[in-house]
């Protein structure tokens, strides 16, 4: 196959330079919140008087199974005990910390280490992502510059709760993945 390609391919054309597209830093959290909410997320900007555990309980009063690799969260499930991802099927709320937030679209980069189990942010009914405001960048070019995508075996940009519009273009939030995404900017 490579041989066929070598015969078929055209003259080499060079790669372009990618210019920097900039935006002032103060604008980022507001822009992030706006764009994140457009894709269906709930974004909590202001610092809460409650600690994280209390916040989670307030947001999800009916949650029975809460899972998180973060020590500051009171979990009902110990992720360290889990070896088979199928055991996570009944998780109600998962809480993880994100590495980078992208203001132009509300996407957050998380990798394998942030979630401990790759399926966690997808299989949970509700997802909460903590994100530090100083980890916000404007666009995807800057996001990719700040991360190494193969640092771990799996990484993902999550930009909202799972959704679909496959039935007559009607938007439905909560398709196969989480029914909601709550972003807490701390």
């Amino acid at each position, binding site marked *: *196959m*490579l041989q*066929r*390609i070598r*015969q*078929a*391919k*055209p*003259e080499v*054309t*060079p*790669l*372009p330079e*990618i*210019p920097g*597209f900039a935006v002032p830093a103060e604008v980022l959290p507001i822009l992030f919140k706006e*764009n994140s909410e457009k*894709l269906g997320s709930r974004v909590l900007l202001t610092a809460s008087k409650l600690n994280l555990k209390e916040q989670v309980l307030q947001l999800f009063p009916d949650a029975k199974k809460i899972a998180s690799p973060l020590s500051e969260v009171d979990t009902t499930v110990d992720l360290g005990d889990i070896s088979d*991802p199928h055991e996570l*099927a009944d998780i109600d709320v998962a809480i993880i910390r994100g590495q980078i937030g*992208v203001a*132009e*679209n509300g*996407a957050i980069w998380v990798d394998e280490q942030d979630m401990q*189990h*790759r*399926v966690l942010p*997808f*299989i949970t009914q509700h997802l909460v992502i903590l994100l530090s405001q100083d980890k916000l960048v404007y666009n*995807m*070019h800057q996001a*990719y*510059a700040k991360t190494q*995508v*193969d640092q*771990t*075996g*799996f*990484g*993902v*940009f*999550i*930009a*909202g*709760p*799972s*959704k*679909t*519009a*496959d*039935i*007559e*273009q*009607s938007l*439905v939030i*909560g*398709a*196969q*993945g*989480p029914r909601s995404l709550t972003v807490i900017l701390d």
Partner: protein
Amino acid sequence: MNQHAQKAAAFIRNAERTRWHDDALWMVRSKRDTATHDIPEWEQLRELGSLVKNNVLSKLDEYLDEFEANAQKNGVQVHWAADAEEHNRIVHDILAKKKIARIVKSKSMLTEECHLNEYLIEKGIEVIDTDLGERIIQLKEEAPSHIVMPAIHLKKEEIGALFHEKLHTEKGASDPQYLTESARQHLREKFLQAQAAVTGVNFGIAETGGVVVCTNEGNADMGVHLSPVQIHCMGIEKIIPKAEHLGIFTRLLGRSATGQPITIYTSHHHRPKPGGEMHIVIVDNGRTDQLGRKDFRNSLKCIRCGACMNTCPIYRRSGGHSYGYTVPGPIGSILTPGKDLKKYSDLPFASTLCGSCSDVCPVKIDIHAQLYKWRQVIAEEGHLPAGKKKSMQMTSWLFARPKLYRMAGKWGRRMLRLLPKGLIYNRFNTWGRDRDLPEAPKESFQEWYQKNRRS
């Protein structure tokens, strides 16, 4: 025999439904417009995307080599498939080795193109398509009509009836929320029971050996992370040089496809999960042939966003099924003639060459120019409908003889003025079925000019 024209005529006979279909897709085009206007540098971004893809095609073998080496370093098994048959065999072998009987699959036009589902099902493997739109058409036993929104041609009542029959939802229920929830529960079972997951690939990164899969539903990830075996099927043209180029393509893809600034999930898979297997199947299936066609190789830049379909006034009024191939619409019409010139000879003519597709294409594929060029190839190879070439040759001949042309014009107009309408508007007069012919003036412009200006 113009397949597209016939199928389109059948589609359009239901005027109400055609309006609904046209409006639905125009709305997606409008959403695309809104999203792209949010980025003042949009046209610059398109140019960047185009240049990167041009570079990729010009060094495709090098990038694929680099990709394979890096993937293998990561513990990923890389396979090469020359054609659809080999692709299917490879996927099956991976599954058979582990005696796998149940798999889940996320959206992949490549696997559609190779007819993977049929192949595996025939060998006794349960294949569940997990993208909601794909699952719907799988249950309905139909082909997708759009590459991004496979069930766009179906009304919610029809889907409701389908789900009632196959998933035992309430009779008469058509609320999309309710239907989606039912599908969620049904598919969740399937994810948990699957023994392997197959996905497509949006972008393969040469620099790192990883693959990027974009979804809104999260279905690809649900499948991949729950099964011990994950298989990613990739066309050779999906390669991009470096991770930094994803900055360009992730900004282009979502906005062009559905008007979202990004897909909800942009997953980067590099290494198998602990205790798991990760496979990448790299597929040719005619792509190297297309690469060798100077006039048409740019069609390989396609990132499968579907924007060209949403904007095409013909696609919107005829539906994806009228194209007769996995990938329909404008991009389909420049990819398919390369596969079977005779069979798909009608597709480049299913267009007015309006050029809207080329202007929405995020990677600047000159679609309408390629449609024009395919027409020339089709005519040269003798695949025009009977008599067409002859009549064109005659017209060309006539136009090269001004005196004859003028006489033909004069007599033609005279006929139109004198003959009874019933004779003019006969069944051979295709134009005349729904349109009046223009008035035939006594004097042509040239006659007027010679009389009034040249003395």
